[in-house]
């Protein structure tokens, strides 16, 4: 059996007096598609943000591809990671945000080519060629010269996905990527993600409230509540036959709120 690509070991994280994560451990296998579901404030987004190094952990350890994310070896001891170490580790990980976070002053093409040119030393021509392939993949090849403000929310999010992919990460984090979209624009983004899951062997972690999509997309579903994994398993088991009472009541509420399962 292969080694896990992400190994989270007893991490904790507080925001002020609020303990979001308390001794959480989990593992992700290479190529696995993982859906993280649960009520707001349950810590699922925090896990993605911690993996992207947008939040620091207060305790515990994380390994990515067998290497410590927040620590490094120095003279036999485990010490906090330097900025250089973090930069190297971040190359393995990409993230797509709920609110897209495109650069409003750059056209679509420049949004995508900026990081590969700056962080990987790619030549402009090569970076643009790769960007056009990615735009083609997300169905926006004709928008290369458009400014973000000229795009719909769904188009913005597809550009954001292409931008993250341009750095060829091994792990992609999707943080409620359809939550800010008008309902009729959700599918165009989900279709891109389906295609991505089918065509690549990237490891994907998805925080979502789209239960139907999580069901089709994920190999494994984790249900979070108050910073803990309450229940995990195959999508069919979690969505059709949840064992835990908290999972059942959460899913009931979600269905009552009109979300598709």
């Amino acid at each position, binding site marked *: 059996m292969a080694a896990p690509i992400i190994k989270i070991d007893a991490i904790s994280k507080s925001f002020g007096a609020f303990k979001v994560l308390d001794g959480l451990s989990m593992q992700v296998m290479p190529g696995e598609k993982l859906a993280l579901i649960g009520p707001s404030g349950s810590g699922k987004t925090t896990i993605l943000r911690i993996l992207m190094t947008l939040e620091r952990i207060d305790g515990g350890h994380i390994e990515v591809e067998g290497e410590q994310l927040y620590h490094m070896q120095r003279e036999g001891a485990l010490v906090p990671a330097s900025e250089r170490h973090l930069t190297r580790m971040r190359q393995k990980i990409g993230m797509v945000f709920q609110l897209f*976070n495109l650069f409003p002053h750059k056209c679509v093409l420049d949004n995508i080519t900026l990081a590969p040119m700056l962080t990987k030393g790619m030549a402009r021509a090569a970076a643009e060629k790769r960007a056009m392939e990615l735009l083609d993949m997300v169905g926006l090849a004709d928008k290369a010269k458009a*400014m973000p403000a000229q795009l719909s929310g769904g188009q913005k999010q597809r550009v954001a996905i292409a931008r993250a992919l341009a750095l060829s990460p091994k792990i992609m984090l999707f943080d409620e990527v359809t939550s800010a979209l008008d309902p009729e624009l959700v599918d165009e983004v989900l279709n891109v993600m389906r295609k991505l899951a089918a065509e690549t062997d990237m490891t994907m972690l998805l925080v979502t409230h789209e239960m139907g999509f999580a069901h089709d997309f994920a190999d494994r579903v984790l249900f979070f509540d108050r910073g803990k994994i309450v229940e995990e398993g195959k999508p069919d088991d979690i969505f059709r036959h949840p064992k835990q009472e908290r999972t059942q009541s959460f899913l009931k509420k979600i269905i009552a709120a009109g979300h598709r399962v």
Partner: protein
Amino acid sequence: MIDWSGYLDLILQGALVTIKLTLMGSVLALIMAFLAGLGRLSRFFAVRALATIYIEFFRGTSIFVQLFWAYFVLPLLGFELTPLQAGVLALGLNVGAYAAEVVRGAVQSIGKEQYEACTALNLGRWQGMRHVILPQAFLTMLPTFGNNAIELLKATSVVSLISLADLTFQAQVVRAQTGNTLVPFATILVIYFALAMLISWGTRSLERRLSRGLDGVRV
């Protein structure tokens, strides 16, 4: 009747000096503004402290005194400056201190999500600042930079006190030679105003050009 043509020449020469001071002072002010403004946001305490001291000192003391220091006191310490150099130095450092706060405020006004996108794309601190944060923040700075430049233009008149023949200095020469007060002072009033309008117009059109495409209007 006074023949004004020769005197107009004097005034125009003064206008050239004023324009030169304004341009050179603005360049220095811009450099200082970015150095000190970004310095205030530095991770390093020493850099922050240095930037803060510079800003508070030059905002907190009179530009007259700063000019006198540059021209009369620095030579005592071994730095001999021409009147033009002293004028540019005092004006640039003074206005740069105000503009530094503009830089800091504009950079801080850029949303957290832009910084997070930079981290997620693995850009270094300076790369993100240079390519993502500053280009957006610059647009916020521009109108206030225009104000600062106009302030600097008007402050150039202090250099007449160190015998630099700027617009105000020449007007006084004309007044002394012709005995007429109204004509020279009315003339320079109009010239200062015209120059200020030019700066306003320049910053506005630059702002329009840079904000193209940001508001979703197809261009």
